[in-house]
Every structure is written in structure tokens, then in C-alpha cells.
């Protein structure tokens, strides 16, 4: 028994080392260079840049209409007053992984810390190093416009206490290294489930329907099922179809991605390594195939 446990632990450590190495290989060099790769894989630019209205890179101000009210993304440039320039690395890592900013400000889970909590602290630290190198912007943050009970941030604290799991990503030793890298990219950095997994009325992701799509996603749009269900998901896509889509946005039928996903591809996925896109595809193809979501009104 003890030998088996030891072996498992050793295998786990090996895979952990591999995941670390793969990230390293993907963006060798300084912390800021590695952090830039994390930045792309984590898709930060799409939300933190108000591209439609000509907003400066990472200066925030993008509007998100949700059932709880309207959120505006914050400035994450290193401006000392309006951005995160006065934050320490430890404060930044806590903000990303635990959803709590300097001074104990608890974030709304529109910021995807329920996924980023799985981010390896070293990756979060590299991300900090990269963000400190971008141009500072003096764009003040805009207040959220929320329905009454949600205006109080202690609600977030309660929500986190009730629903937020703890702990970073732990690889599954019985799976391949590639699968584990894909799982890390999908579940932690890529935070795919934040859109592709349905939520309950309290905004909690439904773990039973991981990546099975939702009729009511961000901006009120339907979000597709990306489990390998043949009729409702990506069951008919090959790994190479998926890898190609993640790089170019081209679907097997010749259509091209639009909406938020076009941004996610342009700003992030298209800039990852082929190995990482392949790992994502391998992980997705290995998910339990789930049906749905049911279309509303036929």
C-alpha cells in the first residue's frame, strides 16, 4: 500500500515537473517573458482592454452586462494610482488566485478567480513581472452598476466561503503529461469553463456539466458545448480540427468564429505553441461527452 502511495506521489511529482518544464520551454527567458506567455494563455487582454471603444491596452473599462448588473473591468497597467503599479507581487498573486485585492477587497467572481485559483503561484508571479512591463495608463476604474444586494462586497466573501474550492492544480498521475498540460490550460489559465460551463442562479459553475455549454452565456449569447458529445458537442471534430480551430478560428465546415471567441483566439490561443493547442485538444476530446444545452423556445 505504502509503496503504491509513494509511487503515485513520485509520478505526480514527475508530471508536475513536466508541466513546469513545458511552460518553461514555451517561454524560456526572463520572468516577464514567461509571464507574457501566461498572459496569453490566461486571456487577460480580451476583458481588460475596451477595444471596441478605442480603450488603451489593459486600461480596463470594458462593460459586462450580467444578470447581477453591469460590471466594468479594471485597469491592470502598472499605473501607480489607477492601475496595479503600487501592488507587491504577493498582493497580485493573492488577487489572481484568491480573488482578494490589496486591503482585503473581495472581488466579484466575474473576475475568473474560481479558475485562476488553480494557477501555479510561479505562473502568477511571472504574470506580475510581465504586467509591470506594459505601458502605464492613467485611466480611472469605473464603478460597477449592480442590483442592490450585490452592491455590498461582503456578499462576495460569503459567496467565496460557500462555493469557492481551494488549492492549486494537481495533475492526475494516471493520465499522460500532455493530458495534464491540457487540463491545466483549459481549467486554470484558459478559464474556458467560465463561459462554457453553465451556472446556477447564484453564479456558481455546475461541476456536473463541465464545459457542456449554456443557452445564456455572456452578453446573453448561447455558448456551445465543447465536450465530445457527437450530436451536441465536438464529438465529430478530430484533435487536428480542434488544434486548427484554436489557431485560426476556422471550423471544420469553413465557418469562422465570431463574438467573444474570435477575441479569445486572436488575443490568446493563436499565440500559444502548437504543442499547447494540441494538449488542449487532447484534454477536450477526453472529457465525458455530455448532451445539451437544450435550446430555448425550440
Amino acid at each position: 500500500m505504502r509503496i503504491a502511495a509513494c509511487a503515485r506521489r513520485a509520478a505526480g511529482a514527475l508530471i508536475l515537473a513536466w508541466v513546469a518544464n513545458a511552460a518553461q520551454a514555451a517561454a524560456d527567458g526572463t520572468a516577464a517573458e514567461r509571464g507574457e506567455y501566461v498572459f496569453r494563455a490566461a486571456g487577460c487582454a480580451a476583458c481588460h482592454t475596451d477595444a471596441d471603444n478605442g480603450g488603451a491596452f489593459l486600461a480596463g473599462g470594458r462593460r459586462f452586462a450580467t444578470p447581477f448588473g453591469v460590471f466594468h473591468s479594471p485597469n491592470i497597467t502598472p499605473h501607480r494610482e489607477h492601475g496595479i503599479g503600487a501592488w507587491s507581487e504577493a498582493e497580485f498573486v493573492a488577487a489572481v488566485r484568491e480573488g482578494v485585492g490589496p486591503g482585503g477587497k473581495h472581488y466579484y467572481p466575474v473576475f475568473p478567480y474560481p479558475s485562476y485559483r488553480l494557477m501555479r503561484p510561479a505562473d502568477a508571479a511571472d504574470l506580475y513581472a510581465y504586467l509591470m512591463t506594459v505601458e502605464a495608463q492613467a485611466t480611472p476604474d469605473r464603478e460597477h452598476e449592480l442590483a442592490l444586494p450585490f452592491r455590498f462586497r461582503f456578499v462576495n466573501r460569503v459567496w467565496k466561503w460557500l462555493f469557492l474550492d481551494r488549492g492549486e492544480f494537481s495533475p492526475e498521475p494516471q493520465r499522460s503529461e500532455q493530458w495534464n498540460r491540457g487540463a491545466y490550460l483549459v481549467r486554470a489559465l484558459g478559464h474556458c469553463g467560465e463561459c462554457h460551463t453553465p451556472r446556477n442562479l447564484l453564479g456558481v459553475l455546475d461541476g456536473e456539466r463541465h464545459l457542456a455549454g449554456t443557452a445564456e452565456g455572456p452578453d446573453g449569447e448561447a455558448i456551445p458545448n465543447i465536450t465530445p458529445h457527437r450530436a451536441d458537442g465536438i464529438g465529430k471534430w478530430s484533435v487536428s480540427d480542434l488544434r486548427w480551430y484554436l489557431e485560426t478560428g476556422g471550423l471544420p465546415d469553413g465557418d469562422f468564429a465570431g463574438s467573444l471567441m474570435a477575441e479569445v483566439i486572436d488575443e490568446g490561443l493563436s499565440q500559444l505553441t502548437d504543442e499547447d493547442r494540441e494538449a488542449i485538444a487532447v484534454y477536450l476530446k477526453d472529457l465525458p461527452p455530455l448532451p445539451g444545452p437544450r435550446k430555448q423556445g425550440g
Partner: protein
Amino acid sequence: MNKRMISRTAILAAAVLSASAALASEEGIIKYRQGVMKAQGGHMGAMGQVVQGKADYAGNMAAHARGLHDMAKLVADLFPEGTDFGETNALPEIWDNMGKFKDAAGETVKAAAALEKAIATGDRGKIGDAYKGVGKTCKGCHEDFRKKDE
């Protein structure tokens, strides 16, 4: 039925008829432009297999690129006023920003022309890049002007 009543009925009938005639033609335009879009998607899908090296029809690429280029030139004029209702995934942003929309549609025309040139060189790397360049313009327009349909 008195005379006034008859003329009112006639006017009403004429109004209903002309409204449905207008509706029918808008419906037709919507379906027509969906056909044009699908034709472009068809060429892109076919070329995608060749570019990925999964189908060995490099000799057909020029025909696909020409077809794509011809279709792409039509797009800017397929969104007249009144075709924003009904079974369409076209977003109101098209009619709110017609200038921006036409510019975006023009990007695909340019990218398709560049793809034709790249194919003429026979250089696989250049063809792949130019193909991806077209894809970028497809996404660029879909991102701002098309509703997700699922």
C-alpha cells in the same frame, strides 16, 4: 356593406398585400446573403483542408480563391435597410455603423486578393499565411457584426 366600407377594406387589403410583398423580398435578401456567406465558407473550408495538408488538391486552390474573392466583393451591398429583422444573425451594429461594416467587408476582399497572389507563387508558407489572413478578416467581421447562433 356600404361604399365607404368597401373602399376601407380595399385599402386595408392593399396595405397587407404590399407589406407582405416587402417582407417576402427582405426574406429573400436574407436567404440570398446567407447563401453568399455559405459559398465563402465552403471555399474556406475546402482550402483549409489543403492548407493543413490533409487533402492533396493544391491545383484547385486558385479556383477556390477566385470564387472567394468574387463572393467577398458582393458582401458590402447585401445588407439594405429593412433586412435586419426576421431569421438573420446579422446584428443591428451593421446598420448603426454601415461605414465601419463596409470597411470590414472590404478587408476580406483585400485578403482574398492577397491569397490569390500567394497561390500564384506556389509557396506553401506564403499560401498558409495568406489563408490565415483571410480567416482573420472573417473573424474580425463576425466578432462585431454577427450574433452567435447555437
